[in-house]
């Protein structure tokens, strides 16, 4: 009788530990937000730093999406900036052209903004599907080129649409986004991608990366998973684009050139491809470090290039070295509690 009593205690203890692990990233983000807000109020942090932080978080989101396509599913996409462009422009079109955002009562604004993010996600997802589809026909380097081409075509199309400013750029977008919005979507992205990658779907995606043919022999419809990865990656980038548009207040097609796409690629591989932590750390580090090196002016890009080469030569698995940081992506132990109950 007394044995069952301790069993219940262990049970509760495990449950609590598990829950704490599960929630640790959320608690961490909340604490982070409060700390940043406090420091800003106390004038320790300049608005500029927070701006950099927000760009960093947006870059993280895009890179996490790219990680699903490149790192997890093993496809090679170098057109991620195109998806960001689709998201940014479509959401900006919703808030600026469809609704006159600044004329709306402030209660409706979050709803309209969420709607615009939804539109951005859907639009980017559609493009992700369009680009993911050909990946059935082309592989490897050729796929890379197709994605590059699609990214550039998206940019060329934007230039042809006068309603969104064409080659002059799209101005007058409400600057509605703040740190809280970005953190919410950042958390949602991590949560969703973490659960996706650790699910059966994610395993299937990894099997596509490891060996296409073997995966197919095991009865995995590789096509479905590749397209799925492209769509999810694109939606993530699209949502990040929507946030970016409402952070900057101005968009220009040249912001989304293939040079920008290679930036995301570099974030991912410098951080460590295949892991969410790698994507986050890489994007964050490579957004903040160049800002810190601003006093070096142009030399920082020289150093950036050099560091990238040296990194690939001497630390090929990136900063995270192929491991997940458990504070970002909790590794949940198998449900011990249930075993105890059964026993």
């Amino acid at each position: 009788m007394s044995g069952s009593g301790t069993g219940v205690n262990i049970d509760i203890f495990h449950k609590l530990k598990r829950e704490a692990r599960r929630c640790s990233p959320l608690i961490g983000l909340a604490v982070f937000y409060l700390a940043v807000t406090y420091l800003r109020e106390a004038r320790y942090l300049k608005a500029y730093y927070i701006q950099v932080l927000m760009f960093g978080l947006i870059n993280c989101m895009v890179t996490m999406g790219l990680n699903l396509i490149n790192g997890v599913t093993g496809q090679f996409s170098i057109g991620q900036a195109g998806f960001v462009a689709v998201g940014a422009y479509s959401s900006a079109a919703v808030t600026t052209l469809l609704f006159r955002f600044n004329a709306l009562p402030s209660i409706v604004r979050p709803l309209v903004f969420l709607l615009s993010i939804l539109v951005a996600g859907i639009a980017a997802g559609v493009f992700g599907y369009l680009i993911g589809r050909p990946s059935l026909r082309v592989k490897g380097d050729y796929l890379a080129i197709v994605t590059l081409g699609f990214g550039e075509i998206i940019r060329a199309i934007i230039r042809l649409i006068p309603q969104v400013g064409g080659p002059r750029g799209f101005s007058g977008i409400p600057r509605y986004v703040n740190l809280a919005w970005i953190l919410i979507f950042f958390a949602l992205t991590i949560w969703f991608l973490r659960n996706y990658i650790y699910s059966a779907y994610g395993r299937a995606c990894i099997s596509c990366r490891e060996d296409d043919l073997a995966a197919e022999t095991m009865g995995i419809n590789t096509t479905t998973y590749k397209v799925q990865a492209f769509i999810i990656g694109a939606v993530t980038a699209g949502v990040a684009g929507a946030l970016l548009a409402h952070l900057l207040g101005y968009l220009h097609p040249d912001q989304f050139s293939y040079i920008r796409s290679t930036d995301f690629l570099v974030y991912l591989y410098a951080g460590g491809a295949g892991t969410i932590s790698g994507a986050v750390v890489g994007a964050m580090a490579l957004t903040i470090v160049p800002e810190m090196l601003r006093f070096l002016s142009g030399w920082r890009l020289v150093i950036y290039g050099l560091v990238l080469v040296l990194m690939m030569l001497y630390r090929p698995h990136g900063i995270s070295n192929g491991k997940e940081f458990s504070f970002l992506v909790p590794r949940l132990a198998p449900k011990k509690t249930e075993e105890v109950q059964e026993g």
Partner: protein
Amino acid sequence: MEHFIQLLIFGVQLGVIYALIAMGYTMVYGIIRLINFAHGDLVMIGAFTAYFVARIPGFGFIPVMVAAMIVPAVISVVIERLAYRPLRNRPRLSVLITAIGVSIFLENLPRMIPVIGPNYRPFPQLIAFREFRLYGSAVVNTIQITNIAASLILLTLLIGIVRFTKTGRAMRAVSFNKEAAALMGIDVNRVIALTFFVGAALAGAGGVLYSLTYPMIDVLMGVWLGTKAFVAAVLGGIGSIPGAVLGGLLMGIVEVFATAFNSELGYGAGFIILILVLLFRPEGLMGRPTIEKV
């Protein structure tokens, strides 16, 4: 009709330059399966070498051209030795990222060197400008003739080397099967270095010819030129030398015609064709399809 011929001349003039640059992409890809992102920047280095060498009195078109071919070629060999060779047996993606790093480095280092700097510079006129009436109002000028003639000579030379010399045979052998080539006594490292040398020399020449036509050069000129040439290489079938020529010409002509139709369209037109080709013939126009072996 006159308009058509005039546009065709512009297209071919641009196309041969794309073909020259595409050649480097296709050769490097053919031999070590690497998309050399830094290749476009070698075009820029060629153009800047020409810019400085042309200031030396007594240096005409040909010495300038030779210098502009040798400098990027040597730089390219150094890059291959330091950055790519140590990674040869690693996953191809890491080499690709390295290439991006090299490209960022090559674009930004000259920006910081005071004598080069980030500004646009007027390219010297190396060829006396004259126009010849061709058909109706269609004209052809000396620069266009030089471009086309020089490119054709260089391309023929290259194809000759690859087809008929011992070195060329070694190149083809290495691109076919590196291990077997090494067993046959071919110095694989030397052949790869040579490939980088030749490809970069052509890129340098392409840089000079392009700058003759559009006489404003800056450190970022190689980025778009490189990307378009790369697309041309893929269009023709990357790894295939005649394919690079065909792809380059096609790309140049399409771009000129599309730009004449709508100035914003010219930019995306090449990519649209590229994607259509890749969707229906993924190996490019003249590439050989790869068979997946189990």
